[in-house]
């Protein structure tokens, strides 16, 4: 799999991830005030090749087809949250009785 850095940036943006620029671009996915996961990509505007897109996909907790959907657009924020809930990465706190 080969991606452009712009594809990854668009995916981060689509998920509403917080971006922090350091040595690399760090991306933080927040949901209801909780940090759910983090990802990163290197600076530069070229292609991200080889196995690195898979490492980014793993950090986003997506299968290959889901990651493709994210990059190519069908997967949106709500769909992503549903996938993370299914994996137990987002847990809703029950209101106090």
């Amino acid at each position, binding site marked *: 799999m080969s991606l452009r850095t712009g594809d990854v940036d668009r995916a981060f943006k689509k998920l509403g991830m917080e971006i*922090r620029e350091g040595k690399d671009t760090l991306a933080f996915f927040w949901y209801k005030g909780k940090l759910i996961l983090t990802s990163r990509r290197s600076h530069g505007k070229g292609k991200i090749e*080889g196995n690195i897109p898979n490492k980014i996909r793993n950090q986003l907790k997506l299968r290959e087809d889901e990651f493709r959907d994210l990059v190519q657009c069908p997967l949106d924020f709500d769909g992503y949250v549903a996938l993370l809930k299914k994996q137990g990465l987002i847990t809703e706190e029950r209101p106090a009785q």
Partner: protein
Amino acid sequence: MATLRPTVYSRGSAAAIVLVDLDAPKENGSTFCSTPTGYPLPDHQPFDPGLLRWEENPPKPSRGEPRSGTIFVRDLGHPRYRLQSALLVAVEVDGPHVVAFSHDLDAFGWGDGEGEAVADFKAAVCELFDALREDRANLGPHPQTVLRYLERVIAEDA
């Protein structure tokens, strides 16, 4: 119940203990790996046996050629952070690049050679540690697990 056989894989002075599931088909990710600290992989993720296969039947790379396998990282190359126990890191040769990653931490680094990839991995771990500590009060389940692990293995010098 699965039959697990402890198997020692070694490379130079480094070694990893891996539990091989004898009942599972080989191609089905049947190998589970324990880290040097004995800390289990998150959610008992299957460890890709392909990463270690060369250890069973090591190829003979030409001099200077990087090869895939696992190594122990014993420092973070950071002025204050010191590793109290080594991190098990998988190194993958990926075309012209090398990728170093940790299943435990879900962190990776890359570069043109193994040294560069491992240095990038160390920087990624330090960045992750700083970020998670900064947001300690607001972590979901996965980052909480990662921070607990990092706090166990990283000591901070005054």
